[in-house]
């Protein structure tokens, strides 16, 4: 069991509750003990860092400092935007001594840089190498489009994590649970992000392209690791389909949910019922040849001879 600090951020308490639920559900099974950072605050994403640099650094700095106080060496930050803010703040604080001092005075806490923010992929990579494959009870044998989004692997100079323009780690993790990742063009393209609120037509256009490419290339589900990406691809689907005159029903799942299913965790514990687009996956036969009803987690009756996952 590895003990890792946990910073859920606001999304995982709201629109991305299922991300939080599924992460907490799989954590003990993959050998992670999550220690939520006490009294955590907003990371300052979007609003703060476009308006006030000091504030945008001070907010994540407080989170880092609180984690350090708990002697945590790593902080798991599932939200890609939070992750970006925490990593960038730590990078700036460690390379700019006057700023570090100024921020320490503001938050009344010292930041030493001993607690390293890690994203969900890094955490999964760590645990998957020591035995994720052995714990798989129901292989997630679907063709998946691994969608990293814009922030998970950028900026490369600061993150030094995976290949910024053609990342592979999510694909690797998905392979471990039995999935077949496709090679596609929109892995790291923009989903429209914050325009979800102010300019939905842009989201419709950008997210529409992502979904189209994933479907065209045969993906059965899109795997994400960012609440913003999920809400744009899932919650805005009606707008997307309307705008693009399309009828895409491909489900969008968090990577933790896919792993949860593979580990045989109950779909309700994974929050699969919270999605706008129902998570409906065809039943596949196991390599043993037996019919595999394991993914039939629907409370409703199966339709059309197929067992469905909702």
């Amino acid at each position, binding site marked *: 069991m590895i003990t890792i600090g946990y910073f859920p951020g606001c999304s995982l308490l709201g629109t991305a509750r299922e991300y939080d639920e599924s992460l907490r559900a799989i954590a003990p099974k993959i050998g992670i003990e999550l220690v939520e950072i006490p009294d955590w605050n907003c990371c300052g994403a979007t609003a703060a860092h476009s308006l006030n640099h000091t504030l945008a650094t001070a907010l994540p700095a407080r989170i880092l400092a609180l984690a350090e106080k708990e002697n945590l060496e790593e902080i798991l930050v599932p939200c890609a935007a939070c992750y970006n803010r925490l990593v960038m703040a730590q990078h700036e604080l460690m390379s700019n001594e006057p700023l570090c001092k100024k921020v320490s005075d503001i938050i009344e806490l010292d930041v030493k840089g001993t607690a390293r923010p890690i994203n969900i992929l890094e955490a999964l990579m760590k645990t998957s190498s020591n035995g994720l494959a052995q714990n798989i009870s129901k292989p997630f044998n679907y063709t998946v489009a691994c969608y990293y989004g814009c922030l998970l692997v950028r*900026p*490369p*100079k600061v993150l030094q994590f995976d290949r*910024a*323009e*053609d990342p592979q780690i999510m694909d690797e993790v998905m392979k471990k649970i039995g999935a077949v990742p496709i*090679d*596609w*063009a929109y892995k790291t393209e923009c989903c429209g992000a914050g325009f979800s609120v102010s300019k939905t037509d842009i989201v419709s256009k950008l997210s529409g392209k992502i979904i189209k490419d994933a479907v065209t290339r045969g993906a059965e589900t899109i795997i994400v690791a960012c609440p913003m990406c999920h809400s744009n691809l899932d919650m805005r689907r009606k707008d997307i389909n309307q705008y693009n005159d399309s009828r895409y029903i491909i489900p969008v799942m968090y990577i933790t949910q896919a792993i949860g299913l593979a580990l045989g965790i109950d779909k309700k514990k994974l929050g699969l019922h919270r999605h706008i687009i129902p998570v409906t996956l065809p039943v596949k036969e196991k390599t043993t040849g037996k019919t595999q009803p394991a993914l039939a987690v629907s409370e409703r009756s199966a339709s059309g001879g197929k067992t469905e996952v909702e």
Partner: protein
Amino acid sequence: MSRIGVFICHCGENIAGTVDCAKVAEVVSHLSGVAHSVDYKYMCSDPGQNLIKEAIKEKNLSGVIVAACSPRMHEPTFRRACAEAGLNPFLCEMANIREHCSWVHEKSDGTTQKAIDLIRMLVSKVRKNKPLYPIKVPVQRTALVIGGGIGGIQASLDIANAGHKVILVERDPSIGGHMSQLSETFPTLDCSQCILTPRMVEVAQHPNITLYTYSEVESVSGFIGNFKVKIRKKARCVDEKLCNGCGVCIQKCTVKKIPSEFDEGLGLRPAIYVPFPQAVPNKPVIDKKNCTYFIRGKCAACEKLCPTKAIRFDQQDEIIEADVGGIVLATGFTILNTDFFPEYGYGKYKDIITGLQYERLASASGPTLGVIKRPSDGKIPETVVFIACAGSRDSAKGIEYCSKICCMYTAKHAMLYKHKFHEGKAYVFYMDIRAGGKMYEEFVRRAIEEDHVKYIRGRVSKIYEEDGKLIVKGADTLLNHQPIEIKADMVVLATASIANQGAEELAQKLHVSYDSYHFFAEAHPKLRPVETNTAGIFLAGACQAPKDIPDTVAQASGAGSKIAALFSATEMTREPVIAVVHRTAPPIFSTCVGCFLCQSACPFQAIEREEIKARDGKVLKVVAKVNDGLCQGCGTCVALCRSKSIDLQGFTHEQMYAQIMAS
């Protein structure tokens, strides 16, 4: 008792503007050991120099101090003047009262006092100066040229035509380098091989040139004029004397599908091969990694069929030793052809190729006989996108420098495509067009205006495959960053030029410095661009920085001339400012205790072990000895010596302490 003359220069207003030179001369004249002190407007002028010469003769001076500019500027001038007046030049020193005093301070008494102090310190040093005599080093008049590309070929021919012996070492089975791979050359579009191969043949036939192909430099020791080199001649498994180059072995080889290095993986070659038809020497080599005989011990078809019985499976690498006086490094460059930019999909999609691969496609001797066919299905591409700066000028992910040749060869590539396939569409994505050079800008304009190549100023963000087409996504920065999508059949990346593989290792073998990109470093970026910091080793071509053919040839001729100048006499003289190990009378012989810390510290491998023997040959003591030819006078060993047994001539401990104590 010393009789030192001090000459204070005004340097016009440069010194006299802030320093009271007359007062300096007056104060200095009273210093102990000073016999003569005078100030003058321009000491470096002829009358100024005569002032020094006359004073030496009249006052019988035992030392001279010129208080003026930096010794880097005029020390040779004044030392020469002293020598002409019969004074050992190393008894003349310069006090820098310009850069170190007048230029950096306001006019004040303090400034004048500082000038006096600088001179007073130097007086104390010069009182301890001893005459020194230049060192004569014999010169072995044979040159080693490493690398047989156009740079190495040109340098070899120039040196050989000057009447000196040359040993040319090439790593590959043939000389010719990258230039032999090129299709046509900018800005004249003449065929690369047509202009190169006559030179290659000339090298092979020149009586003064010894050519070692398929060979590498194993080690280099020694110093300017007297290098000792070991060359590893790798086993070709073919007796070069017996082989007549008939090519039967190549035709009959049973392994045929090995990606050809010469064709950048676009063509195939057998296990016994010559890289290309015009190879020099035209003798095959066996690729042991792929040869059936070496893998399974069977086959030997080539051995059975060779009419001259030249195949030698048991041939071993041979080590050749040679003495050379000077070395030219012409090891060239390589290109970044990894999947350095994952978003461009090189390695993932077959029809995304590098510029060098495109050269092979466009070359009449290439795998497609000069027809531009895309690698995936052999079709002629109807739309080709060329991406300049693929890796160059990109501090975030690539290399920071400009690769220099890409703007020109990309224009050439697009032009050749249009010449070969008139209906085709050619697009070039560029950042800036850098076409500095004779007829270069005109060449690029020709591509744009006459051949209608579409130039788009902007970067490509991503390339992916969709329905059999390569979708190139970019932006046109001249059209308000308007996004552009081009459906291409082939994409050519002008990948960055980088230092050759093993450049760092070779530099370490030769004790030549290299930059952070592993290109060999020149001694001075402007005034000594051909020399390295190691005396006797010169640079030619793209091993120093990315260069096109004209620049490479010019520098190679420069290096050749430097070697010819070095070989113009049978011996050369060097400044005696080198380290010496103290020797005293028996039974101590030397205060050196033989710890040899100095040996490990010396950057030039100039410290040797010397055995002091009794008359019966018994070794009494082992002490350090400095090799005159190798020592560059850096002083590292002096600082490190625990028993203070090493001194730098002209800067001895005694002299330096005297100078410091006088401050």
